[in-house]
């Protein structure tokens, strides 16, 4: 059996090697696929902090993904149409600068996560799953009928936003940005998990009473984790929008929330490498099976079933021989 640390490092090395190989043999689309996987992995890393460490099964994380996406879409839309965004009290100029967009995405989704978390954490278990779903759906329907930014048609941004010193239109450079963001998030999660906060949060998932008994509020721990989680998923949303140069309400859909959960389960709940392996595998399957047959969903379903039935703890669980945290 393999130690988890090695799995994480090997996964990341593989994640880096494939696009570099693709660059060498001039397969730019493979780089795009790897970028997509990296961004989905980043979103799932965000969710994994809430779900894997804090035990909060959120079926509403698409809300943060979408908010990040629309933060990008709206700012870039106002930049490309040269009309400032009118917020009533004051106006904001649009921008095409990625760092500014990212900060906005993080701030907006963190704020939303704080509000949603505050209300949702009154509930637990399946009720928590469903109330987060409800908030996600509210955003979804709002985005569909909000004509100013395209409604269901979404918003197209014609040129990818810029990052100082890089040409983001070159696939490998944009991949580099996303990969660094993913590594940073993983490093953050690793430190977080080992910190006093991570210790307390992990204990709160297992026994709220225990945490309360040592004088800590499980709700407050979970709320902070939910905010951090939402912020990371929001950042991923902004990157995803930039990858596609397009945002639409599908980023808010419950199917996307479900997909993020599934990525994590495939890889391994609460494991550092879990979302990364899950996303890579999912994107690869989608691409490869989709090319084989129109009915590839059947085969995808069968593969997922096999993973649940025979690889408890996901791929990482299978490799390390340990079931991992119980949610």
């Amino acid at each position, binding site marked *: 059996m393999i130690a988890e640390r090695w799995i994480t490092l090997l996964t990341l090395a593989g994640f880096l090697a494939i696009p570099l190989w693709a660059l060498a043999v001039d397969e730019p689309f493979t780089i795009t696929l790897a970028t997509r996987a990296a961004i989905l992995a980043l979103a799932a890393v965000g969710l994994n902090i809430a779900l894997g460490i804090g035990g909060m099964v959120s079926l509403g994380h698409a809300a943060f993904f979408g908010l990040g996406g629309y933060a990008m879409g709206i700012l870039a839309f106002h930049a490309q149409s040269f009309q400032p965004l009118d917020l009533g009290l004051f106006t904001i100029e649009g921008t095409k600068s990625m760092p500014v967009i990212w900060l906005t995405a993080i701030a907006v989704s963190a704020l939303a996560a704080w509000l949603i978390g505050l209300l949702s954490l009154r509930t637990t278990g399946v009720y928590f799953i469903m109330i987060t779903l409800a908030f996600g759906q509210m955003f979804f329907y709002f985005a*569909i009928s909000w004509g100013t930014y395209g409604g269901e*048609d979404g918003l*197209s941004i014609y040129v990818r936003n810029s990052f100082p010193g890089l040409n983001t239109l070159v696939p490998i450079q944009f991949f580099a940005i996303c990969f660094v963001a993913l590594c940073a998030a993983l490093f953050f999660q690793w430190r977080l998990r080992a910190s006093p906060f991570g210790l307390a949060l992990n204990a709160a998932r297992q026994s709220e009473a225990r945490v309360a008994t040592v004088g800590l509020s499980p709700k407050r721990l979970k709320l902070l984790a939910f905010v951090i989680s939402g912020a990371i998923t929001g950042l991923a949303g902004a990157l995803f929008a930039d990858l*596609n*140069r*397009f945002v*639409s309400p599908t980023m808010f859909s419950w199917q996307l929330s479900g997909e993020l959960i599934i990525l994590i389960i495939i890889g391994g709940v609460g494991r550092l490498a879990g979302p990364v392996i899950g996303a890579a595998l999912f994107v690869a399957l989608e691409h490869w099976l989709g090319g084989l047959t*129109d009915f590839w969903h059947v085969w995808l379903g069968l593969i997922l079933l096999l993973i649940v039935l025979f690889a408890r703890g996901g791929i990482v669980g299978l490799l390390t021989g340990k079931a991992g945290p119980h949610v």
Partner: protein
Amino acid sequence: MKTILAAAATAALLASSAAAEVKVGMITTLSGGGAGLGIDVRDGFMLAIKQSGRDDIEVVIEDDQRKPDIAVQLADKMIQSEKVDVLTGIIWSNLAMAVVPAATAQGKFYLSPNAGPSPLAGKGCHPNYFNVAWQNDNLHEAAGAYANTAGYGNSFILAPNYPAGTDALTGYKRFFEGEIANELYTELGQTDYAAEIAQIRASGADSVYFFLPGGMGISFLKQYADSGVDLPVVGPAFSFDQGILQAVGAAALGVVNTSQWNKDIDNPTNAAFVESFQAEYGRLPSLYASQGFDTANLLISAVDAADVSDADAFREALRAANFASTRGDFAFGPNHHPVQTIYAREVVQEGEVFTNKTLGVALENHSDAYAAECKM
């Protein structure tokens, strides 16, 4: 980097000196809900390619699952890896909005076999974007015009609450001269229309216009037919195409709908198309199939006239639209959207099969409302 570029240039030279190879990327919906439309477009398109007997047109087909992000990803793949010259196939407006601006900005041609969102016809038009089907408002405008000729004076209109729905009702109102009894936006994907039908019953309208694509339309028509409300219904062809009619059944009989194509439109191309499509696939063609077929024939005509590597010449060849369309006369307006006749047709039963019969012309040589905004 330099060597790669050079290699690409050499490859391009080689390709153009050989028989003018054209690579076409088709992104369409082949799985999940709405797959029927994509399959029809694909089948119509491939039928035309097959009939042309050419081997210099290569078509790469991919399934977008009706998800915008997948469509964008596939477009990237076709442009970056497959190095296609022409893209086509997208069914849904929101997917087209995601793909088309970026693709044309990268110098690719896009031929739309179905979606025609208004931004791409107006301010966002592009010299490399050609719509072979219709601008989204067209069939609704024709329905408004038909309602005038049918003598309706007070319409109850409804559509789902999303951009295409708003466009639909706007399009109808643009041509309809009577009163609007009520204007209703339903939920996207709604399946139960009892509440709306009750409102129709109470509204005092003399006609109903609805735009509810796919399963929504099936549900509405079945429930409407059973409700005992007997106001005449008008709709665009989307809820009455060949794939859907069998699922609606007798509930659709007699409903008038507007379409730029029908299988009984009298011209040799169309007759041959209907016959060969049935022979090839064992089912009647739908308007989506006819659009796919026309798109392929437009492409073939342009490939015959110009080399795709000479973008300006190829664009001119496309603009000329020098091909025999299943709709009869076909020409592009200044914004590369069709100027075409739109018909009113009625749902009839032929033996066991439900299908449409052309009643007459609803709008003659109709362009669209956005052409003036297009600057190119």
